[in-house]
């Protein structure tokens, strides 16, 4: 009973306590609720941040790797191009050296060949000497000829004079003008007079022709015509003996053209031949080829088979579809192994 009393005493305050507790709990609820929320959100945030950090690291790793890869690629390319440029420079240098040598050689040998030019100039000098000598000889020869012509002319003059004045020759009793007794030997003119034949009357009247000068037109002198040779005497034609026929007639008959009759002109078999010719022509026209007729089996006997490109490479052909069509695995075949039904 005491407990009960006690409890009843507490009862009055119970409602208030109960109310107070509920109220406090209510009041704390919000706070606790908010606190719980805060804690949870903080924790969630931590988790997410950790997750993000994790992701970041991974991403950094991937990017690092990728960038490294790209740069290495770029670097490799750069190295390749640098190498290529180095090689090309080297090649260019070498090519320049070759071209230098070649051009020097070519120019010195073919375009400005010093030794060939020197030889050429020497050859020119030699040739010039030869030409000069020959021309000199030619000039001397002409001079000599001129002199010779002059002397000959003078000689002829003298001879002509001597022949004209033949009467000045000395006789046995009377010494001539050129044969003075006080001289040791007679004058050359005297000797000439002795040698020459006196001119006859007719020749004395002729004027001496000067065959070297030629006429000039206004004075109308006759030019000397070169002495024409005597025309040749006619060849002694002896007339043929006997009463022969006239030559013209004979020749005409000999060379008369043939005038055959129609029968002689046409050939013997002519209509028949013509017909035969017609037939032959027609056959020739209609004939397509000259090969003789062969039986069918022998058409392709001699032909060699030309495989196509696909079949003629060494890598061969795909056997699927040619030698086998579907895949077969004979080891798996059961049919011949099984001798009885398995039921």
């Amino acid at each position, binding site marked *: 009973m005491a407990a009960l009393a006690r409890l009843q005493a507490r009862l009055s305050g119970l409602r208030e306590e109960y109310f107070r507790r509920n109220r406090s709990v209510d009041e704390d609820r919000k706070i606790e609720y908010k606190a719980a929320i805060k804690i949870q959100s903080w924790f969630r945030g931590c988790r997410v941040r950790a997750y993000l950090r994790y992701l970041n690291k991974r991403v950094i790793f991937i990017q690092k790797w990728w960038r490294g890869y790209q740069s290495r690629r770029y670097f490799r390319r750069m190295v390749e191009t640098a190498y290529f440029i180095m090689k090309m420079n080297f090649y260019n240098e070498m090519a320049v050296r070759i071209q230098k040598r070649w051009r020097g050689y070519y120019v010195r040998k073919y375009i400005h060949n010093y030794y060939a030019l020197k030889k050429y*100039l020497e050859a*020119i000098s030699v040739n*010039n000497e030869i*030409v*000069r000598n020959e*021309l000199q000889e030619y000039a001397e020869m*002409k001079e000599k000829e001129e002199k010779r012509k002059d002397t000959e002319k003078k000689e002829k003059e003298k001879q002509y004079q001597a022949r004209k004045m033949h009467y000045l020759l000395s006789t046995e009793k009377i010494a001539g003008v050129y044969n003075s007794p006080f001289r040791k030997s007679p004058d050359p003119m005297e000797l000439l007079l002795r040698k020459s034949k006196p001119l006859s009357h007719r020749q004395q009247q002729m004027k001496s022709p000067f065959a070297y000068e030629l006429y000039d037109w206004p004075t109308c002198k006759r*030019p000397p015509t070169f002495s024409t040779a005597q025309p040749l005497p006619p060849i002694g034609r002896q007339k043929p003996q006997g009463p022969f026929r006239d030559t013209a007639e004979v020749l005409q008959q000999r060379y008369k053209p043939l005038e055959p009759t129609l029968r002689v002109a046409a050939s013997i078999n002519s209509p028949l031949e013509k017909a035969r010719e017609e037939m032959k022509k027609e056959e020739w026209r209609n004939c397509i080829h000259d090969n003789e007729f062969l039986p069918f089996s022998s058409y392709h006997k001699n032909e060699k088979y030309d495989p196509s490109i696909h079949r003629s490479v060494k890598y061969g052909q795909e056997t699927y579809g040619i030698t086998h069509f579907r895949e077969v695995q004979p080891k798996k075949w059961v049919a011949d192994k099984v001798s009885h039904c398995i039921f």
Partner: protein
Amino acid sequence: NSGVLPLLRPLLLDVVPTIQQTAALALGRLANYNDTLAEAVVKGNILPHLVCSLSEQNRFYKKAAAFVLRAVGKHSPQLAQAIVQCGALEMLVICLEDFDPGVKEAASWALGYIARHNSELSQAVVDAGAVPLLVLCIQEPEIALKRIAASTLSDISKHSPELAQTVVDAGAIAHLAQMILNPDAKLKRQVLSALSQIAKHSVDLAELVVEAEIFPVVLTCLKDSDEYVKKNGATLIREIAKHTPELSQLIVNAGGVAAVIDCIGSCRGTVRLPGIMMLGYVAAHSENLSMAVIVSKGIPPLCACLIEEHEDHIKAAAAWALGQVGRHTPEHARAVAVANVLPTLLAMYMDTRSSEDLQMKATLKSILQKCTYLPALEPLLHDAPPNIMKHIVGQFSKVLPHDSKARRLFVTTGGLKKVQEIKAEPGSLLQEYINTINSCYPEEIVR
């Protein structure tokens, strides 16, 4: 003047042939003397009578009539045109077909005088069909006829390339080339003149002439005793050489240069001129050819021509030829300078004469720009005018920096002193050259 012409005219139509011939001869001699008389003959309407009666007359009349036509046609182109207009060309061509060589000669002489004046008259002569007949005339045995026919062909072909081509097409070149060997001097003159008139127009014609194998026969003409044969031979070679380097090369290989040089050495006066020009043309084509001229000892005769000749145009030609020889490389310029010709050229340049100035200046300039032979340049330092001095000092400034012996010589001969005395505007090319020369020497010497 005393009224002879109206009296002579009816005598031309006289019955007696001798009177006709003598009347024609008289008319011809009158017209030959003077061109006013020739005009009077034309105005007196005599030519148609002559032309009409030509065809049926004998050869003496034909000769006399052709003589009249020649005498009238030679004075001036207008008179020749009058002759052509009255239809005389056909008659003359008919005369060319005659048998008598005197008639042919007279007719071709008349045609030659007509064709000489200008190219229209030549074309008229060619159109009348004269050229093949003239080529036939050349082949005749009479020397006078050959001469006249060759001279007519030369007169026809000298005006234009087409006329020359017409003459060539008639086959003239072969016959003319054969006649070069003929001993008659006057014939050779005409033949060489005809060939050179043909060859001068174009490369193809020159090659055709060369193909007729005139070399080396033509070189014998250069040694002939007749001056004009030498001159015409040199003219022919010059006309061939001037077209292309290959033709010049051919001439050089045949020894033509030596022959021409000897020819120049042996003649005097205008006869030398074509030879000098030929050397100039050959040397102008290329440096190898010019070296060939030098090697054939071409420079001494050219210098001799320059010094000895009195006439301006020959001196100018000689100077031009020397310029062509010396302008290619320093070797060539040295060869010219060694012959001691530069002072002569300079003296001639400064000797005030208007016509030669340009050639001398160009020659001097072209030789000096390549000359590195200093001993020849030194004497020029003392008298040269400023525009030439520029080149001389320029050459010194190019050579002195590299050659120590030359520097020493330059000082000892007083050249450095002379260079200091030259006044030049600062900044001009001359001043630069002087500075270059001064910088080759140490300061004390320059002072």
